[in-house]
């Protein structure tokens, strides 16, 4: 029956190719959404890892270093640094603002003032006031200038993949320079980045890296669950396309199935005749979806990082949806009365 199913596919190839492309596009979009979800999680992890912290100290009752609602004194860093087991403490000041990388295009950025230089993908760390490094997603080349917090600053270095809150880019500079721009030179910070283990002084609380990542992903939880919901809707659409195509085919092949049953074909033979087409259609759509996702990912405004496991998984999901989608057609085919084979 596999050969009958494949021959029929061959005969109706235009329809099936159209269906494969349509379902492949839908699956491709689910892969891209999956990549988008993954990049939301990954960027938070990457940004936290950039600081090579063992733990974070923030104001007691504060929500987190990257979601500052209380400022602390930078001078506390010296006190913590003196604790046994602490190798280093760097103050971190976080300011959310907006910049205009291109005329007429204002975007939100997170400005990080740090005590230590952050890892760069190009250029150098700012050596003097009025210099910054930017995440490459901002598309501001080294040597260009940006108006930020009421001052013109020059880009001297680039970071890669340092963003959070769904691709909001980071601009970094020494904390003293940011204190000058933001707080009139006051020695304030949002958090202390601790290497080693510290006991939180009075008025502070310690947070682990996982807790800090949690503060970043919490803010985009709604977006992530919306993406998951869209995924499910797209799967339903894919199953619907497969189901419609196979049901139409089953309707058109009613006489074929009647003749096959009159010749002695059993229900499982008829099941295979439709299900085999669902399998072929789904797997072909899975292949198309990978091509689609690879082709479209670079043109997305946010980095799309499709997890490696998603590629084999899309075939499993496609197969399952294909078989579910084909149920109506299978039922129709299996229920065909062989007596229909008689008559003109």
């Amino acid at each position, binding site marked *: *029956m596999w*050969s*009958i199913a494949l*021959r*029929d596919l*061959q*005969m*109706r190839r235009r329809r099936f190719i159209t269906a494969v492309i349509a379902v492949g596009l839908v699956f491709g979009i689910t892969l891209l959404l999956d990549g988008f979800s993954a990049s939301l999680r990954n960027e938070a992890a990457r940004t936290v890892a950039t600081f090579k912290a063992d733990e974070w100290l923030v104001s007691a009752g504060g929500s987190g270093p990257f979601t500052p609602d209380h400022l602390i004194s930078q001078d506390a860093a010296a006190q913590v640094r003196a604790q046994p087991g602490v190798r280093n403490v760097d103050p971190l000041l976080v300011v959310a603002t907006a910049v205009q990388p291109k005329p007429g295009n204002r975007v939100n950025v997170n400005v990080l003032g740090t005590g230590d230089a952050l890892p760069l993908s190009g250029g150098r760390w700012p050596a003097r006031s009025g210099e910054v490094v930017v995440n490459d997603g901002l598309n501001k080349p080294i040597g260009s200038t940006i108006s930020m917090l009421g001052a013109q600053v020059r880009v001297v270095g680039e970071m890669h993949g340092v963003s959070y809150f769904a691709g909001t880019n980071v601009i970094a500079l020494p904390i003293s320079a940011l204190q000058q721009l933001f707080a009139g030179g006051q020695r304030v910070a949002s958090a202390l980045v601790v290497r080693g283990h510290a006991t939180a002084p009075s008025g502070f609380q310690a947070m682990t890296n996982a807790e800090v990542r949690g503060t970043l992903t919490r803010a985009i939880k709604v977006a992530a669950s919306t993406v998951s919901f869209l995924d499910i809707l797209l799967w339903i659409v894919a199953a619907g396309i497969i189901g419609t195509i196979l049901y139409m085919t089953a309707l058109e092949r009613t*006489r*074929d199935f*009647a*003749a*096959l*049953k*009159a*010749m*002695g*074909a*059993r229900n499982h*033979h008829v099941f295979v005749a439709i299900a085999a087409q669902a399998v072929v259609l789904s797997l072909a759509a899975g292949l198309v979806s990978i091509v689609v996702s690879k082709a479209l990912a670079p043109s997305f405004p946010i980095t799309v990082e499709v997890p490696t496991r998603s590629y084999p998984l899309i075939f499993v999901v496609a197969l399952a949806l294909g078989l579910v989608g084909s149920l109506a057609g299978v039922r129709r085919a299996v229920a065909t009365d*062989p*007596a229909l*084979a*008689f*008559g*003109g």
Partner: protein
Amino acid sequence: MTETITEAVGTDDELVVDQLTIEYSSGGYAVRPIDGLDLHVPSGQLVLLLGASGCGKTTLLSSMAAILKPSAGRIMLGQTDVTALSGAALANYRLRKVGVIFQSFNLLASLTAVENVMVPMRLAGVRGSAARRRARELLEHVDLGHRLDHRPDDMSGGQQQRVAIARSLANEPSLVLADEPTAHLDYVQVEGVIQLLRTLAQPGRIVVVSTHDERLLPLADRVVELTPQAAGREGPPERVELSAGEVLFRQGDPAERVFTVEAGEVELVRERTDGPEEVVMVAAPGQYFGELGPMFRLPRSATARARTDSTVTSWALRDFRRRDS
């Protein structure tokens, strides 16, 4: 064309049809195209089921193919009670014991001629290479060796019919059923198919052909007329006394006479399959009923039953019409 197909021979099974009645619902009304049919066909015979459209030829063929369950009676092919089959045994019977040549050929449009003939063999579990080899041989037997790889759309009606014949022989059945095999063919193609059908009936195989094409009559070892023959029984008018509730004739009975009501009332009721019977008319003194059956050689379409004690006169159709004019 090759004269005989000698290799595809099954067992010496006889076909026995015993008191077969088939009733089904048509538009809610009970229709009984086959009513108490008896038939005995020895192996090697070609039987022609002859009759007009709607007389039950295809219905009978479907029952022989174990596709339609009769309402009563049974069909035996050798030791197999065809009417009692179910599940795997039923599928196995259709696959190995019967070959069907459908009126519309029913070839799978996506498959070539040789692949179509392979289908029953592949369903029966024959290996691909063996099935292909036998399919080629069968197609060469029906003079289609040059069309092995053509699809149905690229073949004439006669060629498609011959592919269907080759397919019906694929699993060496002992019963071959052909439903109106000449219905979609022109006269040139009919000749080839007639010759081929004749060669199929040989010891070990029975061929049953349903048709309304009387050109096939010389083919047959036996002809079964399914159109009611009793229409228009002659004879002088007869007076019939009926008690209340007495049945004059039943729905599906052969139609012989026309009736006029002299006294009382006779109701004509139609049996429904989905509920109570339906009263078609009530004939009162001076009214007549039952003239269409004898006129068109159709079975009775309703049951006539006396509603009260009644007297009716039974007429031969010719006398009735003369009286009417």
